């Protein structure tokens, strides 16, 4: 059990490190512009005559609202994940409890 926990911990730390290192290394000097943004501007650079012919039907009215919606998406997905993991865990516990074995004599 201890080895399992420490291995999981190492994984979590590694993930955090991969994400945190760029922040630390670059500090505030990088704009961390979204790569999708760069995709759009590159399209215009490569294909200067291209006209965007369709626009989103709904756009968040500000970047705060947009962040909020993103957070909602991440949060909503997180709730579902949490529910599923909890449910699976409870089911597992129920499965492995001795009393649930049919025909068990006390």
């Amino acid at each position, binding site marked *: 059990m201890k080895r*399992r926990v420490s*291995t*999981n911990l190492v*994984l*979590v730390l*590694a*993930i955090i490190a*991969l*994400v945190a290192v*760029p922040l630390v*290394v*670059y500090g505030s000097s*990088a704009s*961390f*512009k*979204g*790569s*999708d*943004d*760069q*995709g*759009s*501007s*590159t*399209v215009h650079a*490569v*294909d200067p005559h*291209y006209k*965007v*012919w*369709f*626009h*989103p039907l*709904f756009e968040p*009215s*500000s*970047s705060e609202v*947009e962040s909020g919606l*993103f957070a909602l*998406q*991440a949060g*909503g*997905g*997180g709730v*579902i*994940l949490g*529910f*599923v*993991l909890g*449910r*699976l*865990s409870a*089911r*597992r516990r*129920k*499965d*492995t409890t*001795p009393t649930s*074995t*049919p025909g068990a004599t006390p």
Partner: protein
Amino acid sequence: MGVETQKEISVHIAEGYLPPLHAAAWTIAAAPFVVHGVRQISREVRRDPRSKLLLAASGAFTFVLSAIKLPSVTGSCSHPTGTGLGAVLFRPPAMALLGSIVLLFQALLLAHGGITTLGANTFSMAIVGPWVGYGAFVLSRRLRAPFAVQVFLAMTLSDWATYVTTSFQLALAHPDVNGGFAASLVRFLGIFAVTQVPLAIAEGLLGVLMFRVLGKIAPDELRSLGLGAALPAEPTAPTGLAVPGGPAGGTVDLAGGPDGSAAVTRTAEAGEVE
């Protein structure tokens, strides 16, 4: 001029950035996969209603990861895809549907991706990504790599393949005025593919972590899906490496797990299915 100077696409190609012909072509290309995904998921749920939970988890995993922008070593930020998990659990067709739902949500509510580009984005994230990931999974299993490595490769490569495909789609639609398709491709690859490497690795590690957790709390479900190899080593377990077979899924052994009661109580649980 709208929210930002450019519409921040969360998933690849922003609304209107593919000419109508390309947009239509990719939509037509993606559609049969999504239809197949619907069929495969219904079949799976009929086969084992308990897999609804893991299906929800696969969708939710992609849902969450697509919403999180993370910084990368190249100084920009991007977001992972999360499609590798569902691809390994339920095989790629299921992800075609789940992924397209996530994309649709983001296109409608977040102005990320787009309706016109839904087909193309589905093709890259919900079809190519999962298939490449699943291919890596199967290949590494044949090569007898440890399960963790199989998962890692599945997650990392499905993430990366998604973005490579996007670069390809963009280059196809917007060849460089001088260098043509090739020059364009190099340029788009330069933005997406390199930025994505550390994130894909992080996603790979996250997938490994997820499977460790799932192996602990959902061993029966995993075995039912033919993924007994995901479980912590059991001396008595036979072939945990059953290949997920055809539509009926790789239902394998209900051999006694760490505790014999697990298999016995399965039938008793039938009524409990939600």
